[in-house]
Every structure is written in structure tokens, then in C-alpha cells.
């Protein structure tokens, strides 16, 4: 039986609750790494799609903020995945909450590092840690998690994580769930 580990409030929205809207996008990381601009294009599309369903004058604000949050998640999936394994992006809209679920496949080494980061993200004062990381930043450190820290501290977003080892023990499926308060962004 493959090992599974959950960090954070992963089932904040139980699967039994029907979503008002579901969108699924599958892509290969190599595609986005080769054409980096596609990360932003995909994030802009999702931002645009869900800002349209939010009534009132704040539509553009919602578009900008959703795109910013989702772009970070897509960029991370593109950067850290095994390049030819699929990434599945599932978006579910529930009234004021948008659940963005990103499942990708990473090496066990990447998975262990990300697990440490996930624990830090869930258990630290991120306002303090973000500025500490910037002050101490090693310019060659590309896995600092500073983007996720910024999202969690500045936007009305919470996150949870699931790590599921593959049967062969050579890779891990990682799912990041981000719960975004759409009106609050």
C-alpha cells in the first residue's frame, strides 16, 4: 500500500458537496517550461472565467488577484514536476470559495523538500518569515517557497497538501489545494 500523508485542512470542502462550477485542465510541465508565458495565460484565463461570475464592480480586482494567486501555483507545478508527467488542475467554485487543486508528480527528493516547506507554511508566522527569508535570500536558492508565503500572507487563501508515494517508490503525487475567498481578494 502506497504511503499517504495529509497536511492542513485538506477536506475543508467535502467532495460530497456539489460545486456550482467545475473546470479541469490537464497539461504537461514541459509545455509550460518551454513556453513560459503560457503559465500566465492559463492563470489569466481562470481569473477571467471566475471573475465573470462575481457580480458587482470588483470584477477586475477579482481577475487580477485570482490570476496572481493561480499563476504562482501553475508556475510551481511547471517548475518542480517530472517534466513529462501530467499536471491536473481542478477548479471548483462554491459560492464565495474557489477551490484550486493542483496534482503533479515529483521525485521523492523534491517531495521531501516540499513537505518540509508545507509544514513551515502551515505552522509559521508568515508575515515574519517572509521578510526574514528576503533578508537572508541566497540568490541561487530557487526552492525558498517565497511565492507561496507571499500568497498566504497577502491574499485570503488557505492551503492544504496531500503526498502519495507511487507504488514503485520512485516518485510522489503531490496535491496542493488552495481555498480562495473570491469576494475577499
Amino acid at each position, binding site marked *: 500500500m502506497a504511503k499517504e500523508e495529509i497536511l492542513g485542512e485538506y477536506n475543508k470542502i467535502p467532495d460530497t458537496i456539489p460545486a456550482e462550477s467545475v473546470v479541469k485542465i490537464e497539461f504537461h510541465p514541459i509545455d509550460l517550461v518551454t513556453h513560459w508565458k503560457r503559465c500566465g495565460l492559463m492563470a489569466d484565463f481562470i481569473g477571467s472565467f471566475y471573475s465573470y461570475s462575481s457580480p458587482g464592480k470588483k470584477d477586475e480586482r477579482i481577475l487580477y488577484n485570482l490570476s496572481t494567486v493561480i*499563476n504562482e501555483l501553475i508556475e510551481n507545478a511547471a517548475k518542480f514536476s517530472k517534466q513529462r508527467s501530467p499536471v491536473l488542475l481542478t477548479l471548483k467554485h462554491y459560492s464565495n470559495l474557489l477551490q484550486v487543486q493542483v496534482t503533479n508528480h515529483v521525485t521523492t527528493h523534491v517531495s521531501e523538500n516540499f513537505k518540509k516547506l508545507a509544514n513551515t507554511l502551515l505552522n509559521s508566522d508568515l508575515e515574519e518569515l517572509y521578510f526574514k527569508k528576503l533578508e537572508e535570500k541566497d540568490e541561487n536558492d530557487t526552492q525558498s517557497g*517565497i511565492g507561496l508565503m*507571499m500568497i498566504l500572507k497577502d491574499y485570503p487563501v488557505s492551503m492544504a497538501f496531500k503526498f502519495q508515494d507511487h507504488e514503485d517508490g520512485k516518485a510522489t503525487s503531490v496535491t496542493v489545494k488552495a481555498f480562495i475567498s473570491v469576494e475577499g481578494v
Partner: protein
Amino acid sequence: MEIKDNDYSVVYDEGSKTVKFSGNIRLQGVSEYEPIKKLLADVGDKLVAGDTLKMDYKDLKFLNSAGITTLSMFVINMRKKNTAQISVIGSKTVAWQEKSLTNFSKIWSDIQVAFED
């Protein structure tokens, strides 16, 4: 001094001591930000005590976290040099700016941040 791309531009006007950022900057990782980092470092080297560098972000629609990190590190370097001041101008209508630009004044409390329509 300027950097121009299909999606964005970063232009320094020596007369008004203003760096203006426009468009959409979401480059791939900190290493792709090297040219922008170098332009800012060169601008920083030209400034003398009493100067105020204006950083105008009003027309910058998007900036990813690698970009925000690059700009934050420039602010940290300027704070350490402690010669010139920085004032930051953002837009009230570009939502991310309100959140991210105010972070600069948490890095260096002397920075003035103003938001315009």
C-alpha cells in the same frame, strides 16, 4: 537605460530619476530577472545623497513572485547603501500593487508609497 520586450518595459529617465515599469512581467525564475536587476543596480550606483529615486509601477499589470523578490532585494540593497531615498508610485486599480508595494515599506520604513487613480 531601458529594457524593452514584447510584454513589458523597464525605462529609467535620468532627468526625473524615475524607473517606470510597464506591461506584464512574469519571467521564469530569478535568473531571468538578471537584466532588470542589473539596470536597477546601475541606477542605484548613479544616485548620490539627497537624491530620491521614483519607482513607478502604475502601468505594471502583473509581476510574479520571482519579480517581487528581485525588486525587494534591490530595496534591501538600497537600504544598506543608505545614500538615496526611494518613493514608490502604484495604481489604485491594479489590485496586486496595494498588497505587494506596501511590503517594500516594511523592508525599509523610509520608503514612501503612494497610490494614484
